């Protein structure tokens, strides 16, 4: 009995030493080496792909979606709007910080709450984007315009949703529809290598370009 307790103890001690050594290799050397190379070779990307506007001010990351709101918290229709992000939260612990909690709504396809959210989003898309000369056809609203993404931080909208916003953005910024459409077309990213993923438009980059266009004219 004594002997087997001793054996177990020795075995656990060996396990502990193995864990410590492997922690040094996998938990210290490996991440440090990767960080070192990444910081030298891909400095901007390793630090979050920060994006600057025309004045050289950092206005976010091209990878992270953000909201474009007026002072009273409504969508600022001057700018292109992103997808809804109803799953996004704020941190509930370590509240000395104000972190964005990435996440999805997790609502099921038959959940009445999700049906309600989508109905409201569709009504808002039609109302916000219809102008005196342009009425949004309900059938032209793409699914991404009325659904929340997985992360709540989707930086992109579909080209269809960008096109749909052109008339409104042109009107609000006193630009011609053709000017804004040209801007949007220039920001449409196709699939990677022609087949990976889906075509997208990066909202932040589009809005930065729009800002440049409006300050110029």
């Amino acid at each position: 009995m004594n002997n087997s307790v001793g054996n177990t103890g020795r075995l656990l001690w060996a396990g502990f030493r193995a864990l410590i050594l492997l922690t040094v290799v996998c938990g210290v050397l490996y991440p440090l080496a990767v960080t070192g190379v990444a910081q030298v070779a891909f400095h901007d990307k390793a630090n979050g792909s920060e994006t600057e506007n025309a004045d050289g001010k950092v206005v976010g990351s091209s990878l992270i979606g953000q909201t474009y709101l007026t002072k009273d918290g409504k969508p600022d229709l001057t700018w292109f709007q992103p997808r809804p992000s109803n799953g996004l939260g704020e941190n509930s612990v370590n509240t000395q910080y104000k972190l964005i909690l990435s996440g999805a709504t997790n609502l099921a396809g038959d959940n009445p709450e999700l049906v309600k959210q989508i109905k409201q989003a569709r009504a808002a898309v039609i109302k916000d984007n219809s102008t005196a000369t342009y009425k949004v056809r309900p059938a032209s609203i793409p699914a991404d315009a009325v659904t929340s993404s997985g992360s709540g931080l989707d930086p992109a909208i579909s080209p269809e949703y960008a096109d749909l916003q052109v008339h409104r953005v042109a009107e609000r910024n006193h630009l011609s529809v053709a000017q804004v459409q040209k801007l949007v077309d220039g920001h449409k990213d196709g699939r990677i290598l022609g087949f990976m993923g889906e075509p997208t438009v990066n909202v932040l980059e589009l809005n930065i370009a729009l800002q440049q266009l409006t300050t110029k004219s």
Partner: protein
Amino acid sequence: MSPVLAGVLQVLALIAALALAYRPLGDYMARVYSSEKHLRVEKWIYKGIGANPNAEMRWTAYLRGVLAFSAVSVLFLYLMQRVQGSLPGSLGFRSIDPDQAFNTAASFVANTNWQSYYGEQAMGHVVQTGGLAVQNFVSAAVGIAVAVALVRGFARSRTGELGNFWADLVRGTVRILIPIAVVGALVLVACGAIQNFAGIHEVGQFTGGTQQWNGGAVASQEAIKELGTNGGGYFNANSAHPFENPNAFSNLFEVFLILVIPFALTRTFGKMVGSIKQGYAILATMATIWVGFIALMMWTEFAHHGPAFDLAGGAMEGKENRFGIGGTSIFAVSTTLTSTGAVDGFHSSLTGLGGGITMLGMQLGEIAPGGTGSGLYGMLIMAIIAVFIAGLMVGRTPEYLGKKIGTREIKFAACYILITPALVLVFTALSMALPTPKDSMLNGGAHGFSEILYAFTSGANNNGSAFAGLSADTNWFNTTIGLAMLLGRFLPMVFVLALAGSLAEQKPIPETAGTLRTQKPLFTGLLVGTILIITGLTYFPALALGPLAEGLA
């Protein structure tokens, strides 16, 4: 190009990449686990452990090594979280509560990576990088080690010796996981995944004001999280978060990392038992199920049945634009047919049948191709069941790879396949019967039931993905899912190693005209059928109450 065609092309590209890696990686892994030489760094580690890497172990000693190492790992990771509040380099994050710390420790050591916490607000750099990510490596290495021990059981005769656990653990980590993870992490950084040790810092926003970002060694953790079929996200949104998975290429690349070792291990297996063709038969079984599931998933997600999706005009809820429905379907199937559980889109918002497919994938036992190591040994257990059934049909003593499948062997295999269903169904039933656990459901009706069924399916099968509407950070779920993860990981390993020991003691029986040709397509068909029938019979009633009820409504 239509999204469906783009989805199909992505599957084909993935298959081509996996096919290219199959032979070199499979052969390399066979050499790693057969080689007599030790690298210098490995010798240092053996010296530090105080282990002789050349000492052969019988199954009991091998199992004791697995359990001792894992027990110490659970305790260490638990304590690390409990003292986080006092650890430097932890962003001032407070310590994790006992029930959640137990759940998380069990989860990462069991290669599950179920997360009842939100990564970005709960875990500081030290716990993420020095604790959780380390288990991503070593829990995967333990899985491969046990699989290799089983393969040695088939390959060896009249010995009972299965190799040395410490050597297998260290070699798997140093020679296989780390080199691939380094390359993988750098590819991910090149795509845009972050890799820094910045604290929480303010970044400007377009319309003014700032947002707070959490830095971290994300790419390095992401690479091993996929490669080791772990799945625990640095951020709550997991691989849907742009800093973990920045674009459509990184998305496919991550799926490649998830699948590459589990598929290539069938080559390693073929090599080590001396018949490449036996490996191909296992590979064909895995690939058939994987392709079939992807086809089904794409079909249901593109068809987007369900009131909310019909209204929206597509099942984009919980999915990212850059991946689209095709990319998300490929990821969802690959993550649940392995023990990964990373997600690039949220499974709770898949269509009813799509959610059912992810659950069924896990319930098959995660063997197509399955977790690193656990996929191979799970599939070999199924192969034993299949030859047993075939043996009953013709009235012959079943044999597999020249070893008799006698009473002892079939008992071990039967115990193996009973463990996870028992854990899943008993804990789900208890949660439904007790008054309070149901309060954690987000959705009502059939989907609410699915949330709980999914949680225990995911836990007991060591997957880690979730119908994440469930509020799982309660004493009940932290404790029961924690237990399901530990029992679902280590009890099956007991039977696998016992089986391996029993096989290694046998003398090989010569192949005769009556031997079942387990390297032929006929056997692959029999094996696919066996897997589907056994799982179907076990889980059909529960699936009927959840995803089938929702999907067919």
